[in-house]
C-alpha cells in the first residue's frame, strides 16, 4: 500500500486491536485460570485470581496420569516426525531431481489423500489393524507403533510438497557437480541437498510434530489405557464428577508449550515454505 490516508490507518488500528482481543482472550483465560485456587473457578467467572497459586501445576500430575500421557505423546509425535521427515526427504528428492513416468500422478495422488475425511478411513483402518493383530500377532491396534504409522502419513503429503519447493530452489549445478565427481545420488542428497535445505526440513519437522501432537480422532479410537496420548488424556479431567477447571487450564498450558514454542520460533520458515509452494 502506498500513502494510506489517516482514515485507513485508524481503521487498521481498531480492526487489528479487536482481532488481537478475540485471539488472545482464550489464551489469557488459560493462563489466569491456571493460577487460580479452586473456589475461583467454581463460582462466577473472575478475570483476576483472588490469590495467585501454582498448586494446579502440581496437582495436574496426580488427578490423571498426565506424565504417562506426556511420554506417550512425545514418543508418538517424535517417532512420527522423524519417520515422516526422512521419507519426505527421499520422495521430494525423487520428485525434484528426476523426470520419470508417473511423477505427476504420484504428486496428485499423495496430495489428494489429504482431502479425504479422517472418519472415512478410521473405521476400515481400525478393522485392518485389529485383523492384522489377530492373524499375525503384530499388535498395531492400541500400540504406539500403529499410531506413529498413521500420523506420519497425515503430515507426509504437505511435507513432500513443501520440500519439493525447497529442493527446486537449490541450484541443480551443486548436486550435479557432485554426481559428476563420482558421488552416488544418495551421497549427493545427504552431503549437498540436505545441508542446503535445513530451514525447509526444520519447518516440515515442526509441522509434522504439531500434526501428530494435536490429533484427536484416531487417538481416541486407536489407543488404550497404556498408550493414551495427551489428546485423549486431557479429556480425563472433564469426565470427573467435579471438573477442576484450574487444573484443566494448567494442563492445557503445559501440553501447549512444546508445540507453541517450536512454532513461534520457526514460523518464518513455514511462511517461506508456503510462499515457495504458492509461487508454483
Amino acid at each position, binding site marked *: 500500500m502506498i500513502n494510506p*490516508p489517516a482514515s485507513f490507518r485508524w481503521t487498521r488500528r481498531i480492526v487489528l486491536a479487536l482481532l488481537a482481543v478475540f485471539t488472545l482472550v482464550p489464551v489469557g483465560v488459560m493462563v489466569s485460570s491456571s493460577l487460580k485456587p479452586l473456589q475461583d473457578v467454581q463460582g462466577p467467572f473472575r478475570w483476576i485470581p483472588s490469590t495467585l497459586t501454582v498448586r494446579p501445576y502440581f496437582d495436574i500430575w496426580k488427578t490423571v496420569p498426565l506424565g504417562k500421557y506426556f511420554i506417550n505423546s512425545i514418543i508418538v509425535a517424535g517417532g512420527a516426525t522423524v519417520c515422516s521427515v526422512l521419507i519426505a526427504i527421499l520422495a521430494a528428492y525423487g520428485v525434484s531431481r528426476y523426470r520419470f513416468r508417473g511423477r505427476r500422478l504420484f504428486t496428485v495422488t499423495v496430495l489428494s489423500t489429504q482431502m479425504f475425511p479422517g472418519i472415512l478411513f478410521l*473405521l*476400515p483402518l481400525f478393522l485392518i489393524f485389529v485383523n492384522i493383530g*489377530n492373524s499375525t500377532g503384530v499388535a498395531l491396534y492400541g500400540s504406539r507403533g500403529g499410531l506413529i504409522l498413521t500420523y*506420519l502419513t497425515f503430515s507426509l503429503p504437505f511435507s513432500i510438497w513443501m520440500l519439493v519447493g525447497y529442493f527446486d530452489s537449490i541450484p541443480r549445478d551443486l548436486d550435479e557437480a557432485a554426481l559428476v565427481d563420482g558421488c552416488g545420488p544418495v551421497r549427493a542428497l545427504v552431503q549437498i541437498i540436505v545441508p542446503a535445505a535445513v530451514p525447509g526440513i526444520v519447518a516440515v519437522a515442526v509441522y509434522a510434530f504439531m500434526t501428530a501432537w494435536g490429533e484427536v480422532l484416531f487417538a481416541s479410537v486407536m489407543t488404550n489405557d497404556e498408550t493414551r496420548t495427551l489428546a485423549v488424556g486431557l479429556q480425563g479431567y472433564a469426565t470427573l464428577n467435579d471438573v477442576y477447571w484450574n487444573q*484443566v487450564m494448567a494442563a492445557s498450558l503445559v501440553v501447549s508449550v512444546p508445540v507453541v514454542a517450536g*512454532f513461534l520460533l520457526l514460523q518464518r520458515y513455514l511462511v517461506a515454505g*508456503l510462499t515457495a509452494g504458492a*509461487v508454483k
Partner: protein
Amino acid sequence: MRQRLGRLRLTPKGLPYLLLLPALLLELLIHLVPMVVGIAMSFKQLTQFFIRDWSSAPWTGLGNYHLAVDFSAPVGQSLLNSFWVTCAFTILAVGLSWLVGTTAAIMMQDAFRGRGLLRAAFLLPYALPVYAAVITWSFMFQRDTGLVNHVLHDQLHLTSDRPFWLIGDNSFTALVVVSVWRSWPFAFLTLTAGLQNIPRELYEAAAMDGAGVWQQIRRITLPSLRPVNLVLVLVLFLWTFNDFNTPYVLFGKSAPEASDLISIHIYQSSFVTWNFGAGSAMSVLLLLFLLLVTSVYLFTTSRRRGADD
C-alpha cells in the same frame, strides 16, 4: 539443457521409484487400502458380532445405503439434519475465516511498529494443540462459571438469564465462533505468504496514477491473491466440512442436534451402536459429496480462469 538431461539419464532408471517407494507404500497402507476396504464394508451387514472377522459378515447389497438415505426413518432423518447443519456451519465458518484472514493479511502488509509481535499473537490459535484450545473455549462457554456469560449477563446485562452455550441451539453459535477462531490464522498465514509475491512497483504505479487505498486493494491486491485464494478456500472448505476435533472436544461424545457435524454423526453411528456397515455407507456418501463439490469447484474456477486470460 540437453546436456543436463543427458547427464541425468546416467542415473539408474529405477532410482526415482525407489526414492518414492516408502511414501507410496505408507499412503497405500493407511489411506488407499482402507478406503477400498471401507467401500466394501459399506455393502456388508457389519455389526458388533463380526468385528473380529469382518469378512464373514453377510453382504446386504445396498441395504446400508437404503438405511442411510431413507429420510422418513430416524436414521435417515438425523443424517439429513446433520448434513444441513454441516453445510450451514461450513459456509459460515469458511466465509468468516476467509474474511478475517484476508482483512488481517492486507492490514499487516506494510511494516509498522509491533507487527512481528502481533503476527505471532495472531498465529497462536493455529499453533495451540486443538484439544487444549477448544477445552479452554468450553470453559469459557460454561453456563455458571464461564467468561462468556459473565460478560454478556453480569457485566453488559444483555441477557435476562444466563444462556446455555454447549447444549441446545446456542451450541451452533459457539461452534462457529470456536471454528473461526481456530482457522482464520491459517487463512492469514497463507495470504501473508501470497502477498509477499506482489511486486511493490505495482502499488507505486497505481499510486502515481492516483489510486487510493481501496482501489489499490481492489485492483491489485485481491486479483493477485486469486490463485492463492482458489486453493485456500478449497482447503478451508474440506477441513471445516470434515472437522471432528472441534465439536468432539467442545461437546464430548454426544453433540447437540443443532451442531451435529457430519464427522461426529458418523463416528457416533459407528462406535456407539457398533454398526460399522451403516457408518461406512455414510462415509462413502460423504466422500461422493466431497468429490462432487471439489470437481465442480475446480471445473468452474479453471473455466473462469480460462475466460479471464
